[in-house]
């Protein structure tokens, strides 16, 4: 069996670990409240993503540096505290995106400091070098933000027919449930199933491509032998 294409595909997946494979939202189910509630609209999701970039990524980076020197029970307190300090800084950035969003979403910005994704990541980077840890944190952030942003686009479009407040779909029946938490959870479930389907299709296609190449190689070999 020719597995050249499968290996190429697997290599691509390994490089994008955290984004396409082991996606924190779709595969690991981490930080779901952060993805489900604020993703009712693009503005809110961009604001949360920006705050996450400021709070989550540096915290994980710091964790890789000081993690081994701090004992386990203290780590649980220390990292959310670091994240909280960074959240104060992120407020000014978030307010540039939308003035009211920090107060509108309220607790969901605070959840950036204490959530399962942060706790998972800070423990994962303990044996890693700081630069690898930074790359890991960035990949996790990109993976989570990408899925949440996709959710936000679909939900805003279905519920209000607009994107970033600009009307895109006119005279189309609206689906208000899309902006509710219920809609977010269902959409995330369907996205997870869809991604799994795409993965299977790609895997099947790569296997078929390998088999086809194998047949071509055999045919070429036979032809060359007959010519001889």
């Amino acid at each position, binding site marked *: 069996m020719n597995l050249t294409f499968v290996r190429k595909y697997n290599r691509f997946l390994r490089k994008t670990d955290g984004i396409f494979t082991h996606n924190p939202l779709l595969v690991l189910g981490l930080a779901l409240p952060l993805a489900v509630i604020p993703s009712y609209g693009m503005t809110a999701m961009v604001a949360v993503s920006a705050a996450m970039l400021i709070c989550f990524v540096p915290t994980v980076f710091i964790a890789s540096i000081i993690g081994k020197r701090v004992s386990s029970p203290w780590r649980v307190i220390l990292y959310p505290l670091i994240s909280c300090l960074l959240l104060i800084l992120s407020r000014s950035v978030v307010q540039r995106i939308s003035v009211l969003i920090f107060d509108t979403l309220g607790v969901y910005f605070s959840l950036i400091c204490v959530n399962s994704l942060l706790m998972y990541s800070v423990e994962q980077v303990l044996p890693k070098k700081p630069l690898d840890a930074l790359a890991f944190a960035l990949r996790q952030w990109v993976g989570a933000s990408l899925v949440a942003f996709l959710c936000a686009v679909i939900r805003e479009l279905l519920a209000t027919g607009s994107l970033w407040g600009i009307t895109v779909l006119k005279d189309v029946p609206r689906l*208000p*449930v899309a902006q509710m938490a*219920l809609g977010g959870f269902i959409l995330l479930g369907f996205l997870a199933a869809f991604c799994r389907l795409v993965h299977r299709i790609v895997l099947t296609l790569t296997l078929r491509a390998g088999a086809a190449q194998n047949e071509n190689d055999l045919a070429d070999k036979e032809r060359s032998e007959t010519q001889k």
Partner: protein
Amino acid sequence: MNSTIHHAPYIRHTESSRTIMSDAAIALVPLYFMSYFYYGSRVLLVGGVSILTCLICDWICGYLLQRKLNLRDLSAAVTGIIISMMVPPAVPLYVVVAADLFAILVCKAPFGGTGKNLFNPAAGGLAFATICWSNQMFLYTQPLQRLPMQLDETVTYLQGPTATLKLGGIPRLGLTELLLGNFPGPLGSTFTLIILACLIYLIARRAIKWYLPVSFLIPVAMIAAYNHPFGVSPLESVANELFAGSLLFVAVYMLTDPATTPKYNISRILYGICAGILTMVFRYISPLEMSAVFAILLMNALAPAFDCFCEWLLPKMQPVNNETALDEGGNQQ
């Protein structure tokens, strides 16, 4: 010796998913006739669209999951009929289609299809439509007013008696009107007499167990009698609560779904009682009229817990005797 090789199942029963669903479909047909008599040919359009959407959706899901197409599986059609029976006669068709899609794509197919669904698909679809389009879902029309196929400005919309009850008012409806469903309400779920006749048919055909709807209706009646409004007799209050909406329909057709109810007899009775109490709680505190549907959805999620509770309770209730055994229904043999 002649022997034949045959695949499982080896134990067969005359009662199957197909027979239960075809019985349910047969028991729903008289309601269609009655609603056709009350509201005209638009009923057929709503019903047809609903059934077709459910069937097509179910077949597509089956194809995607690489399952063999089973034309004898009527569960999707029954879901479509139940949804169409619970919506108002003058409902926009996109609401019906959305409810059907939600029922099959979200409540049924992801759990593994027929017989494996955790939630009643029809209840899920109706709850979805109620949350999304609560305005359209509770605007009814006067019975015997023939509705045009294409809704226009000539259609007069009215509130149902359940809205009056929710606001603390008293719907002054006679017993005859309540029994015949001659008041503004859902398309086919207010015809009390016919629903009762269908209930008898379903019990006689052993498609449903009598104690499930009864255990659901008794707490509803008791709470309604106890909490009757001022100036209304307890009996009138009971009649209003039971027959002035789609509660009886829900008790007969949705609560008794074999896939979503508990497996033991005792847990089924407890399930029915809890669903009845929850329905009345939702009626008093929820802003939406279709409280029974939401109560059933919540109870569906708790159905396995009732079975677990029953498995824990039954051995404690039995005397310690090695010879006694329990059958599948939780009864002592």
